[in-house]
């Protein structure tokens, strides 16, 4: 299945053509650490108002791809664009439009929840008054307003993740990229986080790229990109991927595509 076949938003002729610009466009990206190839000719698109799951086992290259999208590393081959801004040429313009949640915890455990949010706001050039107002709003939204003054280390793993997602949205990006955000969380926390992110897609039109190895996080209607050993094996709507793999559901499609997936959990 080609990149062009990945489901994008419905094109409405009454809308400006700019509306069909992909939120994130990855074109033919390859990356190697020395002689070890981590990504090979990876292409994918992420659109506004869509939940795109980047599905792959550990070691598939998901984190490398995230590091390239967020310009922790520069692309060695190929290109990545965020709302039309090439990450390698206009990193500032690309990064200001991205909300990022990394796999590893990136909150400062020693300072308060509010201070973490204000620090992030400053890193995006948001003045303290506006930052405080936005921080209050996002904490209200994730039901952690009463923990604003608490040190981050006093929060549970699920609460920390919710704060990280709230922080990623503080500068009001159009795109949210999350690298295995539910790893290590209990079922209830996982479900709450997933519900919250899906509501952002549905209600605010945020484009989400969600990397995971947990199949139950993918539902019908999502866009899926199956990444395996650094290559994209399939991409498109769940139904398209399942049908292209000649499978009955996403799990069997994944197993068929990757040749067995013992690590995939449900």
């Amino acid at each position, binding site marked *: 299945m080609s990149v062009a076949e990945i489901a994008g938003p419905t094109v409405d002729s009454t*809308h400006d053509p*700019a509306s069909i610009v992909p939120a994130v466009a990855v074109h033919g990206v390859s990356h190697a650490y020395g002689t070890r190839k981590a990504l090979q000719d990876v292409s994918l698109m992420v659109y506004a*108002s869509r939940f795109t799951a980047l599905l792959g086992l550990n070691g598939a290259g998901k*984190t490398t791809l995230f590091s390239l999208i967020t310009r922790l590393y520069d692309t060695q081959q190929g290109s990545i664009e965020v709302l039309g801004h090439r990450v390698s040429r206009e990193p*500032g313009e690309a990064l200001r*439009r991205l909300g990022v949640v990394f*796999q590893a915890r990136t909150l400062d455990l020693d300072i308060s929840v509010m201070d973490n949010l204000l620090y992030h706001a400053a*890193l995006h*050039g948001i003045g303290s008054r506006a930052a405080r107002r936005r921080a209050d709003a996002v904490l209200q939204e994730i039901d952690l307003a009463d923990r604003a003054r608490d040190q981050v280390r006093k929060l549970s793993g699920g609460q920390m993740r919710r704060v990280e997602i709230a922080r990623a949205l503080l500068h009001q990006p159009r795109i949210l990229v999350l690298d295995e955000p539910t790893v290590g969380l209990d079922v209830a926390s996982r479900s709450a986080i997933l519900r919250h992110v899906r509501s952002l897609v549905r209600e605010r039109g945020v484009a989400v790229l969600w990397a995971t190895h947990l199949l139950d996080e993918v539902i019908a209607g999502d866009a899926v990109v199956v990444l395996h050993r650094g290559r994209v094996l399939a991409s498109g709507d769940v139904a398209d991927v399942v049908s292209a793999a000649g499978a009955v559901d996403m799990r069997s499609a994944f197993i068929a595509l990757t040749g067995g997936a013992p690590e995939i959990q449900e």
Partner: protein
Amino acid sequence: MSVVAINDERRGFTVGQYLICLRGITWREALRFVHQRERFISALVRPLVWLFIFAAGFRQILGVSIIPPYETYVLYDDYVTPGLMAMIQLFNGMQSSLSMVYDREMGNMRMLLVSPFPRWFLLTGKLLASTSVSILQVYAYLVVAWLWGVEAPAWGYVAVLPALALTGMMLGALGMLLSSVIRQLENFAGVMNFVIFPMFFASSALYPLWLVQQSSPVVYTVCRLNPFTYAVELIRFALYLRIDWISLAVVTGMTILFTAGAIIAYDPARGLIARRGGGAG
């Protein structure tokens, strides 16, 4: 499915936004410093131990002749104070690099690096923030030293401020450069043994170079090549309201060199960080 028109015209940042970012980085560094009380205490206790114990012992043994910037014989306590001020900044610079390695391992560093501001600005901002913290530590030490009887000319306490800013930048930049080559926190012990101690001891911090020259020309040459020597002398001269131009030139040059090295090392295209490999996913 709804279509959301993408119409985001914001481009670039204003000077005000750069200042907001810089203030945020400095504020976080200060917050971390305040929260880590043991860091402040150890930063103060370390030079004071040298002043109270080491200097007391050496006062009778080590004669310091009249050498610039001093115009008369000075007590060893007076001589060693600029060296201890530089030592505070040396340890702070390395502490800062330790925290960068820690932040990188813990992931906090990523949030800094994915900020849309230019990376050189973010790293320089972090450097300025760490230098400000080190200057506060130095002045805290100077207060205690003054109570102990170590006095410099009154205006010297003001004149030394720009010198401290420059030496703090140099040592902070060195720490930042080292943090880019240290893979893991455990390797930091090596920095103590191979950077901090040699830099401190092979310098004019504890004894004047003419004394070193008399006992070992080789060590004297090493001391002359050590940028930390020039940091100490820049501080020493400034504290006595004078400028040592050679030290100023060396410290400025080294600050530029180390800062450029750190910025290159953290550059996603050219740096060392990108060659190391990604995470699990």
